[in-house]
């Protein structure tokens, strides 16, 4: 069984991002970049499936600037067998990414495509679903458990108020939620070996995809700063303020 895993290059989760002074975007100059945590969970799940003997090959793919090859390498160090980079300096949006993934799916015919449910930069939560629509593959999103057996995959999904299990025929799409697994640390020897694993590079044009952004960002602003609080003398004053000033009760 072949698995395709998508990994996105995002600002590291430890970095406190700031908007640019002109408010056009988030300032990512000289900021540490990493693999999106949800994508890391996706890679881990694929590697576990391979270790269980369910999967035979894992292909890691990233789309973005040339440096996104670092995130492909990270996936290779974690256990993926080969990598694909679709290089573009465009602001790649979910629809373009889904279209490029579709092109790769057609080339590679994976049995399972695993993606993060969202990336921590855009928080879009769209790519997996769009890929489902474009390819007509069944999808199990927000996975907290994945089991593959007899040509089918059963995916336990975290939904409001509980868990839902769906059983999908392969090939299928899975997007990962936080509790699916706890990703391992890449071993240092594997980080070094990753360099020698094969990686193909394409452009959106090679895949016949027009990656021009469709959505325009109007402005990026920091959240409003918290104002200083006040002290109230007693409960009566508190209730009064909540009623008449804050108007919340």
């Amino acid at each position, binding site marked *: 069984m072949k698995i395709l895993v998508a990994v996105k290059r995002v600002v590291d989760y430890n970095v406190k991002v700031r908007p640019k002074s002109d408010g056009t975007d988030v300032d990512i100059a000289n900021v540490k970049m*990493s693999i999106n945590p949800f994508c890391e969970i996706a890679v881990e799940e694929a590697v576990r499936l391979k270790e269980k003997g369910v999967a035979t090959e894992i292909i890691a793919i990233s789309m973005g600037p040339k440096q996104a090859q670092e995130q492909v390498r*990270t996936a290779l160090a974690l256990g993926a067998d080969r990598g694909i980079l679709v290089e573009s300096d465009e602001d790649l949006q979910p629809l373009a990414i889904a279209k490029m993934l579709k092109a790769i799916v057609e080339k590679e015919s994976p049995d399972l495509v695993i993606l993060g449910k969202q990336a921590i930069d855009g928080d879009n939560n769209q790519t997996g679903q769009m890929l489902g629509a474009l390819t007509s593959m069944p999808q199990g999103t927000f996975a907290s458990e994945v089991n593959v057996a007899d040509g089918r995959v059963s995916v336990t999904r975290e939904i409001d108020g509980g868990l839902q299990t769906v059983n999908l025929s392969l090939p299928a799409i899975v997007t990962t939620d936080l509790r699916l697994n706890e990703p391992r640390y*890449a071993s*240092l020897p594997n*980080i070094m070996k*990753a*360099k020698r694993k094969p990686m193909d590079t394409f452009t959106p044009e090679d895949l016949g995809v027009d990656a021009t952004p469709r959505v325009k960002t109007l402005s990026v602003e920091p959240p409003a700063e918290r104002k200083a609080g006040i002290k109230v003398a007693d409960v009566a004053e508190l209730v009064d303020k909540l009623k008449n000033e804050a108007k919340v009760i």
Partner: protein
Amino acid sequence: MIRDQETLGQLIDGIARFVRERLVPAEAELAETYNIPESIVQDMRDIGLFGLTIPEAYGGLGLTMEEEVLVAFELGQTSPAFRSLIGTNNGIGSASIVFDGTEAQKQRYLPRYATGELIGSFCLTEPDVGSDAASVKTTAKKDGDHYVINGTKRFITNAPIAGTFTVMARTNPEIKGARGVSAFIVDATSSGVTVGPKDKKMGQAGSHTADVIFDDVRVPAENLIGGKEGEGFITSMKVLDRGRLHISAVSVGIAERLIDDALRFAMERQQFGKPIAEHQMIQAMLADCKTEAYAARCMVLDAARKKDLGQQVATEASCCKLFATEMVGRVADKAVQIHGGSGYIAEYAVERFYRDVRLFRLYEGTSEIQRIVIARNMVKAAS
């Protein structure tokens, strides 16, 4: 050996992340229990930390000196007891075999050092033999195809968990100095080897030293490192520069951690109506710490790069060891001062680090010995 920026970046990132996510949160437990949890030891094995300097052909990473100090900067961000656990396998505990071992010795031990399955300790210091290291009193007498070792070794790092000891012993009593000393690899299970109780130390809780006593220990002659008598001490000196630069880099890493902690505290703690970081005398301490730590970082990187180019760096390595280890002592002192009374309370990491870093001025050559080395080399070069 990595030598390409991208892979090196990934390696350093990987270690930094492991330190931040796994080791830093375990510091307090380590300090309280004097024990590194087995799950963490296993993780350290799994990610390959025991084999940083072992050549790739024997399952390690074969890091260059520059790569090694970059890694040590990161390992310095947490309690040095963690680093100490992997320190001997990556340094004095394996180096004699790496440098001068026979092929059979390399095959037999290095792969297991690299995985951490086997811990290698290094036995040079004795009750009466410290800075004057070439005056080793432990003896090794040839007896057929064996040597018989007798003597006591002191303050031996990782002795309680060691699988092998690299033992410096005098094979030729006629030759008083270094040339009379040979190095042996001794299995810890050999009959006649006793490891004493763990020493009670000032700091670095969780890293253990102990006496190792050799009482008529019979060692096969094939365990003479390099297969030649009189080479042992010379061999161990080959790793000196490396060890000194490594400790210098760890000192830089810890200084940077202490500065982080002190800065964060100073920006939060308010006195006289403003964060103490806005009081000039606190600022002066922060600035002095930053400057010194930066100077040491630059020194260490410069010396490491020179060493990788094949230059002699004995003087530079001693300069680094002297400056970086004294520097981290001053930084730790100021970090405690910036914390005020809290800096004296174990809840804050600076209290622990203040004690931990005291060691760095003592082992791998005391500060006095570094000064002697530097000045002697200066005079020698000028005459």
